[in-house]
């Protein structure tokens, strides 16, 4: 079966001004949203307490509020779903608040069962935040280092920009939609950082190989187009199979894995987009030319594959 082997080369690079403006706009929207709306951080990063309780019979939100206020709990946000799932969030620094709110709810509904309690103290939440930011930085630096060893600087920067685009895009989507940003979502973002760089690497390897094989008057844009076309089948199958696994998480993974899988989905789509429409154009914009590949090194010969 061959579904993704185009007969003619894509013609993408010639329109890179238009796609560039489009990408820049998207990134701008993400950044604006991240500055104004910011992220809807989960209890992991804000500290406080989250209690999830399954109610066995119908209790009104009002009754729940009254019961909680009576126990002097600090102003909880109450979220009651149709299926009787009750979510309470409190900005409390007392781990006992969870037990107290469960007791308060049980006074209304003795059959209420506890699903989960997450209490994160202020020290821990700020540590989780710092460590998360550090991890993001460490992975970005690690990948930059790897790319700078692997490619000429113009290509390396192109790939890095594409990579950062993916991160901003996931964060921006979470910010715009107001989805909860938790530790697992952060893990998904980091996994995407490691995963998406690969796409640019495959295309760039092919560009390098094709440039050496091509005639001197072939435009570098055409070489990029040819390379993208040749790797297209692999791109679709690889991302398709990863996306199928992620799709299974979205479908069967329940609430717990939903946002994790959603972050991965956005990341996978974004990485296809950015490796084609950002990595190459940025490298060309930085002045990447045929001359950059005149000196043939041993590493380049070995590395040029697929």
């Amino acid at each position, binding site marked *: 079966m061959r579904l993704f082997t185009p007969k003619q080369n894509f013609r993408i690079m010639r329109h890179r001004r238009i796609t560039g403006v489009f990408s820049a706009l998207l990134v701008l929207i993400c950044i604006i949203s991240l500055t104004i709306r910011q992220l809807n951080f989960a209890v992991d990063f804000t500290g406080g307490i989250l209690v999830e309780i399954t109610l066995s019979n119908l209790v009104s939100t009002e009754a729940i509020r009254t019961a909680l206020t009576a126990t002097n709990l600090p102003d909880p946000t109450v979220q009651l779903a149709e299926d009787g799932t009750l979510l309470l969030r409190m900005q409390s620094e007392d781990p006992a608040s969870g037990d107290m709110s469960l007791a308060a709810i049980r006074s209304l509904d003795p059959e209420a069962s506890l699903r989960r309690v997450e*209490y994160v*103290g202020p020290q821990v939440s700020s540590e989780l935040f710092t460590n998360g930011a550090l991890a993001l930085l460490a992975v970005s630096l690690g990948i930059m280092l790897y790319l700078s060893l692997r490619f000429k600087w113009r290509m390396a920067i192109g790939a890095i920009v594409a990579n950062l685009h993916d991160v901003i895009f996931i964060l921006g989507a979470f910010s715009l939609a107001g989805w909860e940003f938790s530790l*697992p979502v952060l893990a998904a973002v980091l996994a995407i950082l490691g995963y998406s760089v690969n796409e640019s690497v495959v295309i760039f390897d092919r560009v390098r190989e094709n440039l050496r094989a091509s005639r001197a008057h072939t435009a570098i844009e055409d070489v990029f187009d040819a390379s993208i076309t040749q790797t297209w089948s692999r791109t679709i199958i690889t991302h398709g199979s990863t996306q199928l696994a992620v799709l299974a998480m979205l*479908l069967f*993974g329940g609430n717990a894995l939903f946002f994790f899988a959603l972050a991965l989905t956005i990341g996978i789509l974004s990485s296809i987009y950015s490796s084609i429409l950002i990595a190459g154009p940025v490298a060309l914009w930085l002045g990447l030319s045929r001359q950059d590949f005149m000196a043939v090194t041993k590493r380049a010969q070995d590395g040029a594959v697929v």
Partner: protein
Amino acid sequence: MKRYPLWKHGLISGILVLAALYSLPSSYPASPTIDIRLKSGSEIVDLHGRTRQVLADADIEVRRVNAVGNSISIVFVDSETQLAARQILEIELGTDVVVALNTRSSAPEWLDELGAKAIALGLDLRGGVSFLLQVDLEFVTDRFLSSSTDIVSVALQDRQIEHSIKREQDTLLIELANPDEQRNAIDVIARTDPRLSVTATSDGLSATISSTGLEQIAELAVGQNVETLRRRVDELGVAEPLIARQGNQRIVVQLPGLQDTARAKSILGRRAALELRGVDEQSSASGSILNRARNGISPPGTELLSYADGGDVLVERRIVLTGENIVDASYGSDEAGRPAVHLALDALGAQKIKEYTRSRIGEQLAIVLIDRDRTSIISAPRIESELHARFLIHGGGMGFDEANELALLLRSGALAAPIEIVEERTIGPSLGADNIRSGLGAVTGGFLLVGVLIGLYYGVFGLISVGALIANLLCLTALLAVLGAGLTLPGLAGFALTLGMAIDANVLINERIREELAGGLSPRLAVEAGYTRAIATIMDANLTTLIAGLALFVLGSGPVRGFAVVLCLGLVTSMFTAVLVSRALADLAYGHRPGRVSKISIG
């Protein structure tokens, strides 16, 4: 295509057979189990034999009994038998053992003997509580500095060095009457406690805790707290608890299956210490002295304490006995049927109390409880006769529940420093079960979707890739089971993701083979070239993901770490299966045909 040598086939199939064997126990359903283990510090002769005897006498059907040292695990047919057995075992085996409900893979015994275990499940899958506790190190250094003030002063006095000493926050300031003695004084202090670092000042000396001293003090306090917590966790009766230090001032406590978190919190973090001290009856009898004491001026060597049920009295500061000398405490009732705690002392404690009470018959002895930072007197009975190693305490409005909890806290000993819960994650049993369902759904769904796509798309080579994927599934399961790292829901997500990403290597290889075929190579050479040339790209792909995985592992906490572990292990196993296993399969499919292979099926 060069043929794969026989030894390579042998090695690869050997590894795969092992992987299949070690992932087998994880496929069996869990059976109800009871875990029995000795409490820390207890000893019992032939626990194993006794347990078997108790079960046999009670005529309880048992599927299997496993014993490793002093921990025993009994597998039952159903949970009714399990619950019945627990009741009998708890009564018959006494308070020196923990009898806890658990579940365990029902895999046959021979697998167990091979050391093949089922994958351990993390708390978010089996339900339970995880606490992160922070030890109050300020309290510890504060206590160290105040005791150092006394110790240093005594040491200097012994050497006839005239001085005055006062404490200013974290520093001891020592003024010397004779400045010539400075060097001498430094030596004395340094020898008294090497954890103090002493420097000369214009009019004397200043001493602070050195940085290594601080480490030692913290280390000791956290270590002692871990021991106390271990004993307290024993009292909660959970199977497979985890108590471990994390960093220099934190302790992780994981209690699988525990539901009553409020009780766990009250017991784990409770500061409870018992002291026996004499009552200063003479001073207490005088209204004026008592009144002055109420205004904050107690006679030297005494302290005003209140009774738990009202009233106050002057108590000597000198401590006759502390909870450290208590070897056992149990709750029950006194002759009058009132709730009481029965205490048993060690030899030293018995000696101390005997000597003290012998000469003081008729006097009052205060039983002082320091609980949750509140000091109060439970009771102050008159000494009727010389006390020995065993006696009981009652009063203070203590009910049976309070007596039970006090006995428990006394048995487990006091915490060396206060602890605070800085993180708690509780997963109810229904959510645990849901999480397992979600995680397994994601893994099987992912596997089937990816397998069908690849199988259809690449023909025989697609089937080969699916074979590699199955091998990956087995290897990763076996590795996780053998390493014993608890599998979490993010871990299962990592599992699903790994399956999707691992296929990338096969896609790279298959696409390359197609291209080489299109480029005019013969099928055998194309396969050969496909495998060798795709390797560099596969390495690239895995390297970048590995960078992310390692950073996640180092900087991530709890759930994220579980994801990182599976992601990194999955990369390693997929390198093996996607390249070597699939190559071996390709060799089996095409390598044995004599002569030229004219056509291969690669979609």
